[in-house]
């Protein structure tokens, strides 16, 4: 009986406590940087696209919401001709980010992407590409990979020695 009255009194005193509710649109909640939200495509520190169109993200995607087509520029550098994410299917699992060998595809803490029309949730490459390097500011795939691209010959990458000319070693 006493405990019942005590319980009622404690509940009554909760009237004067601070509210737990975050009044969302006016008051933004804190979202951790590693939160899995809207997907973006990032760029090198040089400003070139990071994506090498390897299809790993499309392959790993459990709901098949990523579609892309690989192509090459005149120097042999691969890039996606189109890159399309259907966010009405995406489950924000983050597998694409894990699969990506060049840190191109990244998930951001943005979730405010409602649309009145379903087709508007299909994001094309120009919607996905951002101007910066995202979560990995110093990483530049082509500067650590051995592949020759425009402005960087073979052997000019970081921690890479120039290639050995095997013919010159001939007696």
């Amino acid at each position: 009986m006493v405990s019942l009255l005590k319980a009622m009194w404690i509940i009554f005193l909760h009237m004067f406590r601070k509210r737990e509710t975050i009044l969302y649109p006016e008051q933004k909640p804190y979202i951790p940087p590693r939160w899995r939200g809207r997907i973006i495509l990032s760029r090198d520190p040089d400003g070139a696209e990071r994506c090498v169109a390897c299809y790993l993200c499309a392959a790993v995607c459990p709901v098949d919401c990523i579609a892309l087509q690989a192509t090459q520029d005149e120097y042999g550098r691969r890039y996606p001709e189109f890159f399309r994410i259907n966010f009405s299917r995406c489950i924000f699992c983050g597998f694409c980010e894990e699969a990506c060998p060049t840190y191109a595809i990244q998930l951001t803490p943005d979730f405010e992407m409602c649309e009145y029309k379903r087709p508007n949730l299909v994001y094309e490459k120009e919607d996905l590409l951002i101007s910066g390097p995202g979560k990995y500011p110093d990483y530049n795939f082509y500067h650590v990979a051995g592949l020759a691209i425009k402005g960087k010959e073979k052997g000019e990458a970081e921690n890479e020695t120039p290639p050995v000319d095997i013919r010159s070693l001939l007696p």
Partner: protein
Amino acid sequence: MKGIILQTGVALAILGVLVAMSAGLIWLERRLLGLWQDRYGPNRAGRLGLLQVPADMIKIFTKEDWAPPFADKPVFIAAPAVIMVTVLLSFAVIPFAPGVAVADLNIGLLFFLAMSSLSVYSIVLGGWASKNKYSLLGALRASCQMLSYEVFMGLSLMGVVMLAGSFNLRDIVEAQRDLWFCVPQFAGLIIFLVAGFAESRRLPFDLPEAENELVAGFHVEYSGMKFGMFFVGEYLGIILISALITTLFFGGWLGPVLPPVVWFFVKTFAFICWFVLIRASYYRPRYDQLLSFGWKVMLPLALLNLAITGGVVLAAGR
């Protein structure tokens, strides 16, 4: 002729106030529950979320009026009406102020007890006609709970009747001019509170609709306005029990300075808020605990209270 028009006007005004209050209670209860659970409750629609009430009403009135094909149609439709009618009829005997009441019955209290017994039919028939095992279980629980708790509800009120010497609610209020009955009839008050909660099927005695085991109990199959009537019936039940506590134990309209109607509504409102506080505080007992508490604790207490009050009244020679 003029008297009849005036009387009809008063009755219609009471009806309007009651229905408006029960609609407003939807908002009030959600806000108060929020307040006691460290959140806000509805606060978006209109100022303080007050437009939530019209929004809910528009929604529930425009919903499809549907009855499941397997249900017993006539009974299914009649059941929600019964609860509204019986609860609203109970208000007929409640004096809101001197002269402001629908009927001045000399057996007012008995009339209320009869009507509250009749309201069980609504739940039992609703659960029965739904042809759903959960609703039938809910109806079964409701009938058993109401029957058990009605016994000592009536007995707890007899102390008040003895002190006032009348079943007429107006005479009972007048008899409290010197001392509110909550003092000499404290035990009766406690017993009536418990019985009142069981009668209005509110938490902690909402076993007929226990969500976590019976989905929604007796109104599983109900939707639209038919569900709305059960809902309004429940809220009207809260107002009814609060009004009765005020009338029987807290001096009804009696009070200094303010006009009698205001006093009545202030007291009733306080008890309505208290109903919500109880809902926020307590958990639901098990079904067997509920019944054994009713029969083994409350009934003997009510009988003891009756015997002692009777002895005191007899000894005082009134």
